[in-house]
C-alpha cells in the first residue's frame, strides 16, 4: 500500500505552477505491472470523490492527472498519467530557454499569427519641414545661357 495525496486542480494542464488543492491522503495499491509514468492504483471506493482529478504519489515522487476512474465493486481503479510540468516545476525554472512567443507585446520579430490586414492600408503623410523651392513671385525665373568669354 502506498500513500496517495488526492485532490484536484482547476488550472489548465499546461500551467507549470498548478495549484494543487490537496484534499486528503489515502491509501492505494499498485496494480502490477506498473508503468511509473502511467500507473494504475486501486483504492477503496469511499476514498475517491467526484471532484478528485489530481494526485501526488510520494512513493513515485511525481504528480499525476487522474485520467480515469474505473468502478470495480468495492474498489476503484485510478488510471494516472504523470504531470511532468508540476513534478519538475522547480527544476525547470533553472533551465536555459529560448522563448519565441509570450504574452507580452509585439516585438520586432515578425508575428505571422497576429491578425493584420495587409490588404488594407491607411496612409499617413508628413511634409518635410522646409519649403525651399517656393518663392512668392516668379520674377527672375528664366535663365538664358549664352556663349561668352567674359
Amino acid at each position, binding site marked *: 500500500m502506498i500513500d496517495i495525496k488526492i485532490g484536484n486542480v482547476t488550472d489548465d494542464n499546461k500551467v507549470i505552477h498548478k495549484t494543487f488543492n490537496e484534499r486528503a491522503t489515502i491509501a492505494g495499491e499498485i496494480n502490477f505491472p506498473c508503468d511509473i509514468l502511467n500507473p494504475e492504483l486501486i483504492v477503496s471506493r469511499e476514498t475517491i470523490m467526484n471532484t478528485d482529478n489530481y494526485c501526488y504519489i510520494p512513493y513515485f515522487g511525481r504528480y499525476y492527472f487522474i485520467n480515469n476512474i474505473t468502478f470495480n465493486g468495492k474498489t476503484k481503479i485510478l488510471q494516472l498519467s504523470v504531470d511532468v510540468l508540476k513534478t519538475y516545476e522547480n527544476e525547470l525554472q533553472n533551465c536555459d530557454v529560448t522563448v*519565441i512567443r509570450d504574452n507580452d507585446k509585439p516585438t520586432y520579430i515578425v508575428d505571422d499569427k497576429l491578425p493584420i490586414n495587409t490588404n488594407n492600408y491607411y496612409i499617413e503623410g508628413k511634409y518635410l519641414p522646409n519649403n525651399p523651392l517656393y518663392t512668392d513671385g516668379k520674377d527672375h525665373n528664366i535663365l538664358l545661357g549664352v556663349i561668352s568669354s567674359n
Partner: protein
Amino acid sequence: MVNENYYGAKDTWLTPLDYLPYIKRTKNILTLNIPKNTELDKTISFVCTDKNFCGNYVTYARSNGNEIKEYAVDIYDIDNTEEKFLYHYIFRGYNLTGEKGYSDVKDWNYDVWYEDATDATYQNISFYSSFGKNENIKLCIFVTAYSSFPTGGNSISVDIDTYNTEYKNNYPYVTNIYCRMYFLESDGKYRVAEVNDLRIGNGVLNFPTAKKNYYFSDIDYLDKILYNINYGNGAQLNDAYASLSIFLNSNHDAEGDDRLCTGVSGRRYIPCIGFFPQITEDIISTNKTFTEKGVKVYISDPQGIDTLCYRCIDLTDNYWIKNDFYEFCKKQTAYFGMFFVTSVNNINLSLVDTNTFLGIMDKNGITHGEYSSGYDNVKQFNFDIDLIDTEKKIPETEEKDSGDLTTNLNTYNLTSGQRYYAMVESNFNDVIKFINLGYRPTLEELSIDFKGKNPVDYIVNALIYPFDIPYSYELYNVTLGGINVLKSPYDENSEVVKAQYLTNSTQLFDFGTIAITPKYNDFRDYEPFTRCELQLPFCNTYVIDLKKFMGKNLTVKYSIDFPTGSCSAYIFLNDLVVDIVNGQIGYSIPLNGLAQGEYQNQIINSKFRLDQTLINTFSNFTNTATNIISGNVTGTINSIGNNLTDISRGEQITYNLKHTAPNISSISTASPLCSFSQDYRARLVFYRSKNPNFDKTIYGSTVGYACLKFGKLSSFSGFLVISNIKLDNINCTDTEKNMLKNLLTSGVYN
C-alpha cells in the same frame, strides 16, 4: 518684450525641434533619464494628454544636488483608432528676486470678483509649494482645449487660499497670475481666447467666446503677458502648504465624488495640480534636508469631469485620492499641464530657479519641448534622451554608428566659357523679339566671313524655372556674340535689353530634416506592414528603406544645376548621403530654327555658289518659313512673309539674303510645364496595414506574441512558447524529458 529676468536669456531657449524633455512610451511605462553628472537641484513635473494617451512624469533631485530619482509614469493606452491630435501645454511657475515683497496678508475683496455662473461648481487645481521668504510669486497658467470647450459656461478661476497663520511673515506672496487659454480649432491651429475679466480670489476668469487669431506657434506670444492680474497688495501663501488654488469652473457636481477632499482651510476641492512638500515638521526646519516633493495632476474636460493624471507621492487618503485614470482619458478633450521646476535650498527651502517647458505632443504620445532655464541658471538643463525599456527585448548588440558618416555638399560656380542671364519674362521676350525680327548684318559684316555673327548661334539654352533663380543685384546688357540685344531691333539707338546674371551655377536647397520614428515599436513598423515613400518634387518618388532609416533622421537637399535645369535630390541618413535621385526642375524653352540660321550662314558664305544655292534653297527656305509661320511662335514673323515676296527675283534674293537675312528662330513656349503645378514640397508617405480590433489579452495568453528572448525560465512569466530548452539537472526519465520538451514547445504558462 521678453523680460529676461523672468525667463532667462533668450538665446538659452531651445528651438522646438530640440526635443527636451523627450519621453518614450513603452506600453505603460514612460521614463526619462537625467544624467547623473548634471548639477541638479530641481524638481520637474509635467503632464500631457490627448484623447488616447495621458502621461505625466515627475522627477526630482535632492537639495544636495547629487541624488537623482526618476518616477516612472503611468500611461494608459486607449485602443482607439481615432487619429491623435497635437496638444500644447505649458504651465509656468516662477519667482523673482529683487522685487519688493509684501509683509501683510490681505483679505479678499469680494466686491471685485465676478461669478460666471451661479450654479457652477468648482474644480480645484491646487498648487502647493513652499516658497521662499517674502518672495513675490508670479504664476503663469496656460490651458489648451478643443474649440468645442464651452466658453462662457466654462472658465478658469483663480483663487488663493489665504489666512493668517503664525508663519505669515515667512512665506511668499502671489502678486500676479497670468493665464492664457488656447483653443484648438478645426483647422489645427491654436487660437488664444480673449479674456475680458480676470480676477484673483474667489472670482472667475472669464474666457469669452470670441477668439483672437494668435497662433500657438508664435512663441513670442508666450512672453507677452496677456492677462496681468494685479492682485493689489498680493496674497500671502500659507506656510504648510502654500497654496494657489485654481478652480476650473464646470458643471461637474463634486458632491459624492470620492476625489473630493478638504483642505486645511476647510475648503473642499478636488486636487488638480499640486506641488507640495512633505507635510512634516521638517519642512519648516532649517536643519533638515528637504526630502521629496510631489505632484498630482488633474485634468478637466468640458463636461467638468476631472481625473487624476498622476500622483507621485502617496500621502494619506485625506489629501490624495487615486482615480481611474484610464476611464477619464476616453473623455478627455481638454487638459491642463504644468511644468514646474524649482531648486531646493537647504536654508529656507526657497525657489531659486524656475523653468518653463513648452511641450508639444505628437501622435505617438511623445513630447517635444522647448526648455528654458531661469534667470539665475545660465546652464541649460540638459535631459539626456535615453530611453529605458524595462521590458525584455530581443537581443541587441552594443554596436553603434561609427566611422566617417558625414557628407558635405558644395556648390560650384561655372565662370568661364558661358554666361547666364537671370531674366524676367519681359526681358526674355525682348530677346526673342530681337531674334525673330531678324538681325541685319552691316555691309561690312557681309563682306567678311559672316560665320559666327548670327546671334542665335550664341544662345546655349533658355530654361524656365518654377521659382526665382539666384540673380545678381546689378543689371547688365544682354549681348549675343558681342551684339547688343536691342529692345527695338530696327532702331540702332534703341535701349539695350538688360538682365541680371545668374550668381550661382549650382545651389543647394534644404528641405529640412525629419525623424523616421516607429509607430508601433515592433515588426509592424517595417515592410511589408509599413511602407514608406518619399515624394520628391520634380524628381521621383523614392522608396524609403525602413530598415535603414528607422530611428534615424532623414534629410533631403536639392542641388540644382541651373545651366542645365537638372536637379539632384540628396537623401541623407543622418549626416550621410545614401542616395541621389535625379530630376529636372528647369524646363527648356525650345529655340527651333537654329538649323535654319546655320543654313542661312551657309548660303551667305557661299558667295561663288550663291545664285545656284539660292535657287535650290529658295523652296527650302519657303517651306521652312511656312513651317515657322504655321507654328506657334512668339515674336512676329511678318517680316519673313515680307521677305518671301521680296525674294521672288534672284537678285533680290541675293540682295535680301545679304542684307535682311533673318535669323529665323522659332520660339515655342509649349514646354512641359505640368510639373510646375505640382507640389513643391517633399513629403513622406507611410502606408500602414490596418490592425483589426481583437482582444489582445486573449491573443497574448493563448497564441502569444512572436519574440526572441533568452534566459532562465524563472525570468519569464505568463504564456510562453519555447523553442529550445536545456534540461539540465532534472532527474527524470528520458520519456519525461521528451514530454517536457513537447509541452514547452507547444506553449505553457509559467
